[in-house]
């Protein structure tokens, strides 16, 4: 028994060491360079800065007329709107697909698989958005994000539904629950673990999405945080300190979200997420 404990301790140490080298060093690298002077940062070394220049972060905030503030607001609205819609529509759809398998759900399932494979067509999508007056609006952008992220969300919900026994619904049905109540009062609460997973994974995806907002939500007043990074790349190409400061600033929100939901992510990822 003692021997085993030794091995676990050994594992701890090795694990921490490797994690440090592979996963933590890049972050330290970004952090120290974001606090250096331009010239020092351009040497790209991982040495500790001579003096901590927190002003870099302020400079990033002030760039382009405080664009980053608008960008954060836009990104938050986008993420919150998309994730709420994804949860509601995705869970309803995944629930039905898993529970009844007939021709209709088969077709729906196949369509969803194509969603995983086909890249979005940009101009036709803009064409559609304009017809329904949603181009250049955050509402339109939210709906696009929902459409593009639905396949994976539905898969997760469908996979998780496998683990929910039928008995509860049968009992509810016999008690005379309506279909809507059955779903909203019995099923949806049981889906909590997978919902947490969806929140983290999809919030991160939408928040980090760069290309779609670039096309479907143009205009500097509509900028999202990833776009600020891109603007900085043109402006500050030779100023790695500001670039890294921006990277860190726009990673923080997702980091906070992750810390909140960290323990729950695993619970929702029940095996067989892509069961056909």
């Amino acid at each position, binding site marked *: 028994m003692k021997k085993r404990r030794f091995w676990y301790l050994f594992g701890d140490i090795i694990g921490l060491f490797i994690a440090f080298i592979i996963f933590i060093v890049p972050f330290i690298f970004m952090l120290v360079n974001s606090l250096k002077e331009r010239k020092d940062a351009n040497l790209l070394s991982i040495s500790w800065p001579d003096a901590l220049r927190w002003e870099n972060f302020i400079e990033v905030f002030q760039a382009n007329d405080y664009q980053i503030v608008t960008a954060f607001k836009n990104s938050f*609205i986008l993420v919150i709107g998309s994730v709420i819609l994804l949860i509601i529509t995705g869970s309803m759809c995944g629930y039905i697909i898993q529970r009844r398998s007939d021709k209709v759900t088969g077709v729906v399932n196949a369509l969803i698989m194509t969603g995983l494979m086909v890249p979005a067509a940009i*101009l036709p999508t803009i064409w559609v958005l304009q017809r329904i007056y949603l181009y250049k609006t955050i509402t339109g952008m*939210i709906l696009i994000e929902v459409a593009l992220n639905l396949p994976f969300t539905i898969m997760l919900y469908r996979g998780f539904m496998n683990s929910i026994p039928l008995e509860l619904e049968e009992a509810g049905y016999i008690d005379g629950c309506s*279909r809507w109540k059955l779903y909203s009062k019995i099923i949806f609460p049981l889906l909590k673990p997978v919902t947490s997973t969806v929140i983290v994974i999809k919030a991160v995806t939408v928040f980090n999405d760069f290309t779609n907002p*670039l*096309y479907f939500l143009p*205009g*500097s007043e509509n900028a999202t945080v990833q776009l600020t990074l891109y603007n900085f*790349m043109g402006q500050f190409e*030779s100023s790695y300190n500001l670039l890294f400061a921006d990277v860190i600033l726009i990673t923080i929100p997702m980091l906070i979200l992750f810390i909140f939901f960290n323990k729950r992510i695993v619970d929702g990822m029940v095996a067989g997420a892509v069961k056909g």
Partner: protein
Amino acid sequence: MKKRVMAAFLSVLMITGLIAGCGSKENGKTEGKGEESKELSLLVDTTNAANEGFMAIVDLAEKELGMKINVETRPTSTEGDNVVKTRLASGDMADLCVYNSGALLNSLNPSEYFIDLSEQGFMERVDDSYKQAVSVDNAVYGIPFATSRGEAVLYNKEMYEKYNLEIPKTWEEFLSNCEVLKEAGETAVLGSFADSWTAQIVFLGDAYNLMTAVSDFPEKFDAGEMKWATTPEGLRSFEKLEDTTPYYNEDYLSMTYDEGCDVMVNGGAGHWFIMSNALSAMYSLYEDMDMVNNLGMFAIPGDDASVNGITMWYPVAIYGNKNSENQDAILEFMEFYISEAALDAYCEATLPDGPFCVKDYEIPVESYAAVADIQSYIDAGNYEPALEYISQVKGADCPAICQELASGQTTAAEAAQKYDEDCAKAATQLGLEW
């Protein structure tokens, strides 16, 4: 039952709509304003937006014309192209748009989107050859955004002195200079190919030599009668790029343009094939005139010592949105932009990298030494605009093809072949019969 589901769904839509509403309220500000408020939006890429001369003119225009200019930035290169084309296609262009002049303008289908300026009085001031670069089918669309630039070789005077080199008159001499520098352990030619557009300069900057040898190349090329791969003088431009391969710095495929500026101004390399606006970028790094004046510029040499001329790269242009409601304000701004006062303000904010494409405008300050080198070519009449300002067709993949060639993955003949195929795609898109 069904109703309830739909009701729930709709209410969610409404909630998100409400949330989104808060965000999009401000959008209204820039749209649908009447002319009396004189507010203009201007879409420019981040690199050009960083031009202090441009910002100085904008500031002055706001003061003098009482306008508000909202400068919107977009990414550079491929993403930027995408943004411009997508926004034009969707009818969502800003009032003013900064975009390439020359062949790339063609691909935007300008008659649909941009104001024809040929009747405007202020266009008299613009150089005729620049006008040609912003014209499609007799309509003129743009005004010059900044100064023109030499597309040639920056060289390190100190190194030239140290190793007793002379400015090469032929390509052979140039290569032997490189050989000397290489043997001495110096970086003979600086490569900054992480920004792939810089890989094209050897090829594009050779246009003067091509044009003096085969003056009807652009016409015949547009007509599909001549090809790069089968025209020896055209193929020669690719061969020159191939010749440079052994002389680059070790990290030439990973170095960016900005890093290149830093290396060059610090005397870290003998030559750099680049455009002269790099001078301003270098100056802004250290604000030290002597460091920048250690660099001179010479044209890409040909094979005949008696033919020596420089290829000029014309500035990007400002175009007016034809479908905007602010026509008058747009024209007013354009007229002002190339006025004497505006150009003076430009020169005060940043030193010009070459002559403006405006007639009779004398640059009021003394600029970098390399700019004087360019000027002497121009004064002697030994210059040609780059090919893309004469020919209609420019392949979109030119940077990658040149990058591939310069990194030794292909031969000059293969690259020329590839570029011909690339141009064929562009020609198809333009509806030319090849």
